[in-house]
């Protein structure tokens, strides 16, 4: 079975084809990052306007790259939430309508399930069960995964998502948009021993997160340190490093707890922040200490993409799941409400 996947939940237009026998056969992403850079964040209406211009050309491009024609696609999966409703509607309307025209089944896919299953696109793929850390600009969740659609939320952020904390702190450090990756780049030049930031909510039991206090702490540190700094550039790098260490360390502490408490041997990392080099290193060390393994997708599949949507859709469509001739994406949609496969 070959599934076309369409992702338009935020500021990336992604289209891909997943083939049950050959794996991922085509994958293209168009990023709107330049459109939103001027505003310092994603402008929903501009995102929607761009999706409606870019999605169909990307579908054409992906089919051409894969050497596929209309009759070669057996199902269509599109992101049905969570995300920006106007942006979601573009991919949903186009995907559902194209499936109608081709006479193939269609399915609205949960964006975070897409991220969660993305590491299964790699070799070797992690076997179920595992613990998943979903970290992106919109989400920070620890999920126990027994199988496709068998999810238990172990913990989540009570305020800012980890990626959001990266982006907001980057703004405080006056780094250009998109802030997260730029902050990580600056942190590489920083001295991890100069400052130590708090590790929020690690001094108590539980697996929830809170990252909003860290950006305030960063701002205070910056205001105190920068005026009397001999080397301002180095001080900013040191502060960025301290922030990154605090976020990464907090995530590592909670993941270790989750793996131990659940008796799991495998941890997967997914979502935009899972591209962070330091996070990958530290999680690798931690799981080695725990006698387990860590899995994550290649960098291009960490950020939003159509491949993960095609793959998650394929997991469900192949079992006969599909939807009626309608589309109704949702801005909010708890992942635990998904049916098991």
């Amino acid at each position: 079975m070959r599934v076309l996947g369409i992702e338009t939940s935020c500021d990336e237009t992604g289209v891909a084809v997943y083939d049950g026998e050959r794996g991922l056969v085509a994958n293209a992403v168009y990023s709107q990052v330049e459109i939103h850079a001027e505003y310092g964040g994603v402008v929903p209406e501009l995102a929607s306007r761009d999706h409606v211009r870019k999605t169909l050309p990307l579908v054409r491009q992906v089919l051409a790259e894969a050497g596929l024609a209309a009759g070669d696609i057996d199902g269509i999966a599109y992101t049905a939430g969570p995300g920006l409703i106007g942006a979601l509607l573009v991919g949903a309307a186009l995907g559902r309508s194209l499936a109608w025209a081709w006479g193939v089944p269609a399915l609205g896919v949960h964006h975070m399930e897409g991220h969660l299953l993305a590491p299964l696109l790699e070799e070797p793929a992690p076997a179920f069960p595992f613990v998943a850390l979903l970290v992106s600009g919109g989400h920070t969740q620890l999920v126990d995964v027994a199988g496709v659609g068998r999810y238990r939320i172990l913990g989540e952020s009570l305020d800012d998502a980890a990626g959001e904390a990266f982006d907001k702190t980057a703004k405080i450090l006056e780094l250009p948009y998109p802030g997260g990756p730029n902050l990580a780049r600056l942190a590489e030049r920083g001295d991890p021993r100069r400052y130590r930031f708090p590790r929020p909510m690690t001094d108590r039991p539980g697996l929830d997160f809170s990252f909003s206090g860290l950006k305030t702490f960063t701002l205070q540190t910056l205001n105190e340190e920068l005026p009397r700094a001999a080397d301002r550039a180095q001080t900013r790098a040191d502060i960025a490093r301290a922030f990154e260490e605090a976020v990464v360390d907090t995530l590592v502490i909670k993941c270790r707890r989750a793996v131990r408490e659940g008796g799991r041997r495998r941890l997967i990392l997914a979502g935009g922040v899972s591209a962070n080099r330091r996070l990958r290193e530290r999680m690798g060390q931690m799981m080695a200490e725990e006698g387990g393994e860590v899995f994550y997708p290649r960098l291009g599949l960490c950020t939003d993409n159509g491949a993960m949507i095609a793959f998650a859709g394929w997991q469900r469509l192949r079992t006969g799941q599909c939807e009626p001739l309608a589309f109704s994406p949702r801005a909010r949609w708890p992942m635990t409400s998904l049916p098991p496969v």
Partner: protein
Amino acid sequence: MKLLAFDTSGEACSVALWCDGDVRQRLERVPRRHGELVLAMADGLLAEAGLRLAGLDALAFARGPGSFTGVRIATAVVQGAAFGADLPVVPVSTLAATAHGAFRQQGVRRCLVAIDARMDQVYWGAYRLAADGAPELVGDEAVLAPEAVPVPADADWYGVGSGWQAHRAALHARLAGRLTGELAEVFCEAQDVAHLAADLFAREGGVAAEAALPVYLRDRVTFSR
């Protein structure tokens, strides 16, 4: 000629099937539920007529102006269906289709169409319609304050569309002496889109699926830092 027309630009969701001058329409006024209805309406119309999507000559849609999200729903639906069935697309102005609605319902042939655009503005277009209902745009389509709409040189016009409800006083003050009547309850329907599209398609043909794009008129949607 056979074509299927879509409108989701406002509160109503409608689809119409045009078969050589005979038109059938499904319409429901259900705000925010367009996605649940629009494809089933289209599928139902085709089934009823014993037609297949690929057997049509073209698809048409109300390309705006109107609700940004609403206009994009019809756009994306038509892009997907047109690409999938390899059909050309005929984009039709929401304002022109509304003028045609006034002609179809009341025989009105001089329409000052105003659709409520929120933010104290209206989407505006002045249309003269021929005896067969073919609209001719006088001036340009625009989004502007009701106090600033262009005033025609001559009289005997009808005010048409939701803008005449939302900004009745301001529009009547601006257009004093130019108006004969008002049809504020007329709104864009797929059957009017189909009428105009059939004519446009016969004269000019359609565009490729990816060239079927919204016309928003309001392009300033952000405030730069």
